[in-house]
């Protein structure tokens, strides 16, 4: 029963239905974690993913979810490769992904990755609730590796910000 996944495009479309376990509104495609998907000559589905952060514990769950979604579709032979290079960056996050993040209540990354000075200066982060630009960083490290903690000075709500990497 493999007829429904015949092409690489089918593989990518099905893989893109897997969501990030920490931010369930985003698919691994939105996040840029999904790098490649192919059907090999012998029918094996080969997927390539890359971790957001080196220590990201979500990778194991993502691998399992990928294998499961293909097995549910009748594909038993699934290989998931983890690659480190090129290193993941928030620049790979799709525009759709950023919009979904904001709607979910997490401010999406502002600006492009890159580093020059020992003290990082970020662009203004917009409050995902009241859209005020008057926000303040409380901690550069948040509930997961990829997020920082902000607070809105207008509506006083604390919120997560997906930081630029």
């Amino acid at each position, binding site marked *: 029963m493999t007829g429904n996944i015949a092409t690489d495009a089918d593989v990518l479309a099905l893989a893109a239905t897997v969501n990030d376990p920490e931010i369930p509104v985003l698919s691994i495609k939105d996040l840029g974690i999904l790098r490649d998907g192919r059907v090999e000559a012998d029918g094996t589905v080969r997927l390539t993913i890359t971790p957001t*952060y080196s220590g990201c514990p979500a990778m194991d769950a993502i691998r399992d979810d990928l294998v499961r979604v293909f097995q549910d579709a009748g594909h038993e032979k699934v290989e998931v490769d983890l690659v480190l290079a090129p290193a993941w960056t928030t620049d790979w996050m799709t525009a759709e992904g950023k919009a979904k993040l904001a709607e979910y209540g997490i401010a999406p990354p502002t600006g492009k990755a890159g580093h020059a000075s020992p003290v990082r200066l970020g662009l203004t982060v917009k409050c995902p609730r009241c859209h005020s630009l008057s926000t303040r960083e409380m901690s550069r*490290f948040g509930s997961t590796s990829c997020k920082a903690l902000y607070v809105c000075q207008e509506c006083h709500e604390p919120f997560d910000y997906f930081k630029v990497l």
Partner: protein
Amino acid sequence: MTATHASPDHSLDSFGDAAASATRVTPGNALRPEDIAVRPDKPSDDVAEYALRLGDDSLILAQRLSHWISRGPELEEDIALGNIALDLLGHARSFLIYAGHTLGRSEDDLAYWREEEEFRSAWLFEQPNGDFGVTIARQLIVSIYQHLLYSRLVNSSDTMIAAISAKALKEVDYHRDHATQWTLRLGDGTEESHERMQAALEFVWPYVDELFDEDALFERLGDAGVRPSTLREQFDAEIAAVIDEATLSLPALPRAMGGGRRGLHTEHLGYLLAEMQVLARKHPGATW
């Protein structure tokens, strides 16, 4: 089948896969060494030794920093130091898995079943956390050093070392920012915070020189590694700038002996390992 040389049973081999699976959530659920890259070539013996040093530095510091979780001066710091520890653990896993391809050992085997003298980390990483100032002083030194090192290692002729470094570099950039900001706040803060931050710098300063020591390995590594002595000038300039802006003074203290790269350690490493390894050793093959 002649005589048995079966060693007494502390031999690592005797645990085999059981040791390898010591930290698996469930068997087969975690990233296996072969997953870290698409079928990588085994590193040479020299690159494996180098990866072991890089991995051990990060592993030991990750263990130290994770001790702050639930003990930070404020909730945000629990989270920050915990996140930094997690990043470092990620770097350690990548390096140790890579070294393990050649050494014939898994990451867990390397973390849980080596003795003190088999660890290759420098002394700075195993020093006790002290107060928050000491931890920040150590973070400042380590993050500036690692940032310079990984900035150069992204061009390593060994593609795996280059890939791990490129990933680590982006994360260490945040660590450096964190340590810099705290050094500025504490150094240029109250009279007490200033004094304690100065004392903290003096506590860790003797361990700085060892980071830049070189041995014959670097000659053999060639372009796969980076000679640490070539990072020193920029390290001194960067750290002096932060220390100066924080109204602190650069300590002038004799160096500690060092020797971690050869397996000689301070008394602190044994206690650290005892805590880190006890569960895996007491219950070989345990999964959780």
